């Protein structure tokens, strides 16, 4: 069993340790992923492959890993994923994790391909994985099949148009068809959309097939993936909802009920109902009332809210008859009856309103809320709709449109109705209650009790409470409160430093997201001296903003950790500025050939800021030197012998130190890079007189250290260092002499 080096248990133990490391610090993901890929390959033992597949699924799901980093990582693992999923002998648990990983990776790769259309091989790999998943979708074990469904859902989400094409709004990582340019060489929006449409049909097929009861898990898995599609892709929402509304989860309840079947039927019914209630509650844009017909929905966008409500009620009744009356043998009432779309529409069709009379039902006796006072609709679904989830300007827009269209007579009737209610309330005004001293209202069920705390709950909890309890019964609201009273929002809870840093990081990540999506300007417009930095909202402007945010925002606020003024590598690196720097660094390194100008712009800002800080105080924390070296170290291993990047970088950064030149000298260890290093130094010698001497020193060092570099270095030195030719000559003579002596002796 034991491998020559380590047993499987020991290896897993080591892998677990590595995992703990990345769970604690996401910056280690890249080296660790690269390290484990060979260990978990197809020839590895099944325990290791399972571990690896699970780890990959976890990595790409991890909310703490920035999307940029995941994108880079996804390119590294794609080949491994493809090999693993294409192996027909692969263990099902491994396949399950790989399909999960693929679902997380798909939007990342899609986004990468949108921005990097040259990368055909990567897209080929992704397509191979995709088609493999769709092939095993129907034949694999259920555990794998549900993950195939989830993968299909991700693909549909990515390959349909989102409602908002503006990348600055909404989730920065939201990927949709809107982002694909029409003339993209690899991605044809039309085909992608057609594929998504077909996939959606295939997903929804599970509701239409004569459902065998073993499909309960597939049905649940599908239902629970649909909410985001319905909410984020309004144009396919009706199609999905129509299929669900024609699905009868209780259909099998008439066959003899085994314990297993009971569990499954109950599960499908409850899951369907919860999804529909969730949609009716949350999907607010969906339910816009037409005021002239207050209890009907004539909004063409959604004729379904009423149907959903009726479906939910019918389901609950049928379920109670089947399960709660314990009469298992009785067949279910036919709930599909009346679900037929044609019949339903007849029922819901607005009665030709010969009576324009607008009826405002009187209030129920007893205390009521302000909301109840002004609610004139009788529709329960509409009452539950929380207008506060809409944006303010949307509400204003709707309000204006409604007022323009509204028949004055109807409005008057409604106002009159509410006035009557108000009068009847005022007549029956309850005794004064002081909210501060009144006993907390508690009903019998201890759990249902929600105390009325003033400022005690945070906004989130209050919203949550409101969502959960329509219509709220708050006996403490007195009628006089109906009149406008001074109201101040409770102050928001103060942010902890951690939260503040986290939110700051979120903002920074979004700015980077925007930068990536913005096209590079085709032609640089010279804006002259008088321009204002960062006023054009293009990519350069964002870069200016982000670099200044990194360098200036908290400059001078940092405490120098030690008398040594250079920023230390240690603990204080968690500050926001350093997080931005870290992100900038990663952004530059990700594609340094294209982004070297950003690196230079950023380092110029750092240099300037360091100078300013030094002028202001003795103990300023300096950043420039550290980050120059870091960027250089990041670039150097990837340099190509013909890269001009290094020369450009060295000549444009504002300050050069011996450390930087040492890095350049180090390049000469590789004979292929000698030329590049020396040319870069020569350029410095020629074009930057202040550093000429140290650059020449560096060349001389190279000359004396690296054999391969001697001829060229000697050439440069002869030209630029006075007296070098003579020294060289005398040295040569000496050697000749030595040699001669040696031979002689």
């Amino acid at each position, binding site marked *: 069993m034991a491998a020559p080096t380590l047993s499987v248990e020991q290896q897993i133990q080591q892998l677990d340790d590595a995992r703990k490391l990345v769970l604690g610090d996401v910056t280690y993901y890249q080296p660790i992923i690269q390290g484990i890929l060979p260990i978990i390959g197809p020839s590895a033992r099944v325990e290791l492959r399972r571990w690896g597949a699970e780890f990959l699924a976890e990595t790409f799901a991890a909310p703490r890993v920035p999307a940029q980093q995941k994108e880079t990582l996804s390119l590294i693992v794609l080949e491994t994923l493809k090999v693993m999923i294409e192996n027909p002998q692969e263990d099902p648990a491994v396949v399950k994790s790989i399909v999960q990983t693929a679902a997380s990776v798909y939007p990342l790769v899609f986004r990468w391909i949108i921005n990097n259309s040259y990368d055909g091989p990567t897209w080929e790999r992704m397509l191979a994985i995709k088609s493999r998943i769709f092939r095993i979708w129907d034949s694999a074990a259920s555990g794998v099949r549900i993950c195939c469904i989830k993968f299909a859902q991700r693909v549909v989400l990515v390959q349909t148009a989102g409602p908002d094409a503006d990348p600055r709004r909404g989730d920065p990582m939201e990927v949709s068809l809107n982002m694909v340019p029409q003339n993209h060489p690899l991605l044809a929006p039309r085909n992608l959309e057609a594929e998504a449409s077909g996939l959606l049909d295939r997903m929804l097929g599970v509701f239409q097939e004569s459902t065998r009861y073993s499909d309960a898990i597939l049905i649940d*898995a599908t239902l629970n993936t649909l909410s985001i599609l319905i909410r984020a892709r309004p144009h396919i929402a009706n199609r999905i909802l129509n299929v669900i509304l024609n699905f009868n989860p209780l259909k099998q309840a008439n066959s003899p009920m085994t314990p297993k079947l009971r569990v499954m039927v109950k599960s499908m019914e409850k899951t369907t109902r919860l999804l529909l209630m969730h949609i009716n509650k949350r999907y607010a844009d969906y339910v816009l009332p037409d005021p002239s017909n207050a209890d009907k929905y004539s909004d063409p966008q959604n004729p379904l809210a009423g149907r959903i409500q009726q479906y939910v009620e019918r389901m609950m009744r049928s379920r109670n008859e089947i399960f709660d009356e314990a009469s298992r043998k009785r067949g279910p009432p036919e709930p599909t009856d009346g679900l037929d779309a044609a019949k339903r529409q007849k029922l819901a069709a607005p009665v030709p309103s010969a009576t324009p009379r607008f009826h405002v039902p009187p209030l129920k006796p007893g205390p009521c809320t302000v909301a109840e006072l002004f609610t004139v609709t009788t529709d329960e679904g509409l009452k539950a709709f929380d207008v506060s989830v809409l944006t303010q300007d949307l509400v204003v827009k709707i309000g204006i449109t409604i007022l323009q269209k509204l028949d004055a007579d109807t409005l008057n009737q409604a106002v009159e109705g509410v006035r009557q209610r108000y009068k009847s309330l005022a007549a029956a005004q309850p005794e004064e209650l002081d909210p501060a001293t009144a006993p907390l*209202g508690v009903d019998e069920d201890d759990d249902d009790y929600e105390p009325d705390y003033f400022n005690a709950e945070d906004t989130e909890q209050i919203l949550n409470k409101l969502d959960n309890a329509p219509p709220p019964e708050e006996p403490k609201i007195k009628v006089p409160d109906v009149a406008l009273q001074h109201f101040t929002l409770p102050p928001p809870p103060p942010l902890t430093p951690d939260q503040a840093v986290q939110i700051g990081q979120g903002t920074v990540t979004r700015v980077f997201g925007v930068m990536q999506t913005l096209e590079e300007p085709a032609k640089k417009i010279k804006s002259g001296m008088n321009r204002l930095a960062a006023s054009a909202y293009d990519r350069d402007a964002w870069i200016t903003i982000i670099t200044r945010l990194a360098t200036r925002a908290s400059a001078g606020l940092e405490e120098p950790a030690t008398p040594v003024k250079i920023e230390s590598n240690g603990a204080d690196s968690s500050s926001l500025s350093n997080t931005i720097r870290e992100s900038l660094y990663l952004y530059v390194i990700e594609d340094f050939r294209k982004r070297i100008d950003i690196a230079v712009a950023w380092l110029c800002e750092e240099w300037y800021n360091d100078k300013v800080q030094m002028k202001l105080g003795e103990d300023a924390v300096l950043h420039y030197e550290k980050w120059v070296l870091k960027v250089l170290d990041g670039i150097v291993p990837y340099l190509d012998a013909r890269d001009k990047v290094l020369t450009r970088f060295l000549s444009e950064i504002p300050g050069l130190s011996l450390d930087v030149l040492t890095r350049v000298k180090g390049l000469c260890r590789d004979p292929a890079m000698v030329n590049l290093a020396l040319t870069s130094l020569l350029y410095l010698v020629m074009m930057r007189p202040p550093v000429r001497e140290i650059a020449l020193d560096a060349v001389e060092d190279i000359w004396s250290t690296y054999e391969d570099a001697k001829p060229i270095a000697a050439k440069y030195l002869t030209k630029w260092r006075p007296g070098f030719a003579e020294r060289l000559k005398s040295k040569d003579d000496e050697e000749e002499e030595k040699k001669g002596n040696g031979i002689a002796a």
Partner: protein
Amino acid sequence: MAQVLAQPEAVNGAVSNGLREDHGGFKLKFCTVCASNNNRSMESHLRLAEANYPVISFGTGSLVRLPGPSITQPNVYHFNKTSYDSMYRELEGKDPRLYRANGILNMLGRNRDVKWGPERWQDWQPGVPRLEHNTDRGSEGVEGGVVDVVITCEERCWDAVVDDLLNRGSPLNRPVHVINVDIKDNHEEALIGGRGILDLADSLNKAAAEARDMNPSGFDSGNAASRANFDERVPEIIGEWQERWPNLPAVWTLAWF
């Protein structure tokens, strides 16, 4: 396929409080949920942790509510901000006789040995590492911040959990079984419910371990039996469990993190 689980002690309710020896092997990761993350979810949290399962627990209420001197004066605390220990000390200072008699101090005393304080489901972000919870009972194995099975103790909590998962839009693409086991909110029922939940966890884990031990003959080939994997068997396992525990009605669904 026949799956007979001998759990006589659990059914009789005689023993089963014992600490179990850890035999290693595959372990499902669990999460228990009730309204206040104090009584039912904590009883089963401890129960599962004692059986060496990785486990975390939450409450779905808006606030932590504990009984007070009368039904109109409950003790109310914030989730994630108040420790069990501080609740214990506060109530002990208020009226030690009352809170000892109604079992609250006993409960809080147990809870503070399990973890720091009540956590709210809706504030939990699945997938965020929980390394800082390493002293909690049952924390070993849930460092990654995700679980395989969520067990709620009341249908309202199940609804809240499933609705919350729908709301989050399943960004992690990870399946999770959400099972409700209806338990009345008092100390006696919590004890019985805890035993029931442990029995359920054992049954589920046994099936999951079996599925993993099966010699992988490849998922393309292979007969139906070898393909009957864990996820598919869950409704059957719950059905059988329900026969053993008819007083703890169960609901199940397959949801997504």
